[in-house]
């Protein structure tokens, strides 16, 4: 633009193994969402020094990877039924029509919305709409599932319930997930790996593996302690920058 350059992301390297849940945690404006959008292909990136993004499809290296995306807002098509919204992405991904009913039923049941097939999104609460968005993203059985602060627009009580349910859903669906959040507690509770990101320049300054066995409990003191340690670490890095 106008000959000037806008470098948001520099020297970022991360690697998510199949079936793992990786979180990127960082303050607002550090470019976390941009990173997801680049992976999803809705923002273009130009790289000078050989940057690349690769998603290895399960169905063979030749095919294009399937990417599921859960956004901050549900982003449902309000004029389609719950079922219609899921069928929309199944059709977009050219998934055979005779499997649609099965996929819709399976993933709506998984997110706890069985029986809502014919309902319209605007009749659902914000939390339920986000559940539809999760079912939609899972229904295409993506090679990677991108989640961009999916609970940040919900009230804390709903968000807690959703995090817990998401963990249970993932134990059944086992997708590979790249999750973006500014909430360290959320990241610790959900993730196998956490990448901590700082701003200006955006870079990953720490990578941690979380080995707490699943199912995890939100009240688990081990989770609280780890969260506290990571918050302290964050402040140290941010202060060192100033």
């Amino acid at each position, binding site marked *: 633009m106008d000959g000037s350059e806008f470098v948001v992301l520099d020297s970022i390297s991360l690697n998510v193994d199949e079936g793992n849940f990786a979180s990127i945690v960082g303050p607002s404006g550090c470019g976390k969402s941009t990173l997801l959008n680049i992976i999803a*292909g809705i923002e273009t990136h130009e790289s000078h020094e050989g940057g690349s993004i690769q998603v290895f499809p399960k169905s063979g290296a030749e095919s294009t990877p399937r*990417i*599921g995306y859960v956004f901050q807002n549900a982003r449902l*098509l*309000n004029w389609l*039924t719950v079922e219609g919204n899921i069928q*929309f992405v199944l059709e977009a991904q050219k998934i055979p029509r005779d499997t649609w009913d099965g996929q819709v039923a399976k993933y709506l049941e998984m997110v706890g919305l069985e029986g809502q097939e014919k309902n*319209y999104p605007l009749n659902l609460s914000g939390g339920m709409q986000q559940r539809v968005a999760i079912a939609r993203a899972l229904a295409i059985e993506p090679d990677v599932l991108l989640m961009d602060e999916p609970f940040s627009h919900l009230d804390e009580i709903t968000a807690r319930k959703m995090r817990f349910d998401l963990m249970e859903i993932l134990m059944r669906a086992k997708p590979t997930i790249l999750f973006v959040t500014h909430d360290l507690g959320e990241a610790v509770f959900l993730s196998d790996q956490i990448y901590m990101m700082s701003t200006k320049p955006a870079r990953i300054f720490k990578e941690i593996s979380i080995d707490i066995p699943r199912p995890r409990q939100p009240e688990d003191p081990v989770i609280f302690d780890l969260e506290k340690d990571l918050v302290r670490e964050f402040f140290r890095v941010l202060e060192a920058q100033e």
Partner: protein
Amino acid sequence: MSTRVRGIGLRIGSIFVMLGIWWVTAIWMNDVEILPGPVLIGKTIATNLVTLGPEGQTAYFHIGITLGRTFIAFAAAMLAGIGIGLAMGLRKVFEHSLMALIPLMLTMPTILMVFLAVLWFGFNEVGSLVAVVGVVTPFVAVNMFEGAKAMDKSLLDMAKTFKAPRRMLIQKVYLPMLLPYIFSAFRFGFGITWKIVALAETFGIKYGIGYMFFFWFEQFIMEQVLAWIIMFVVLMLILEHGVFARLESKAFAWRPSHSL
């Protein structure tokens, strides 16, 4: 629900009150050449529908002519307006080049547009068509332009992330987002169209409801003048509220509080 029933009751009631006032006034004035009563008008309309009029045709013939002109002109104006509006909303070149012209067209008084159209193109079908297109197209275009501007980009991004092909984007994302604007343009545009067609007919385009209205106006036969006006208004009310409003409520069934 009860407020809805009450609302409908009041609407129907108000029509009867107006008919009552008309009926009483007509009896009180006692002059059929100035204000014939509702019963006489009703009878006149019924007679017009079944007997041949001065042009050797029943009222159905003239209704058909007027409706035909209205629908054709309206379809042309809608198509042109939607095309221009979308072009303006999606391409800056069109937005900048047309933004100055459209207010010019919108500011032009409707009646002058009708005059110009019949002067240039004659007292015929082309004249009324040009008048309608001249008045309605800019209005539809502005509506569609606003619709195109108001489109939710985040939904388009969602659809693109899931690799929705172009056909699905148009059918399931763009079109539903534009539909409220299309409907509002449709309702308003149709209302102006039939008024312009009727006006053009009174100016002397052969046949049609406006033509008959003017025919009786020149002879100063009040009951026929009123009969044609009222028949016309009732017909258009049935079309707008009975047909179009139903279509609209069906198209927006997904809105939780949709009401008319």
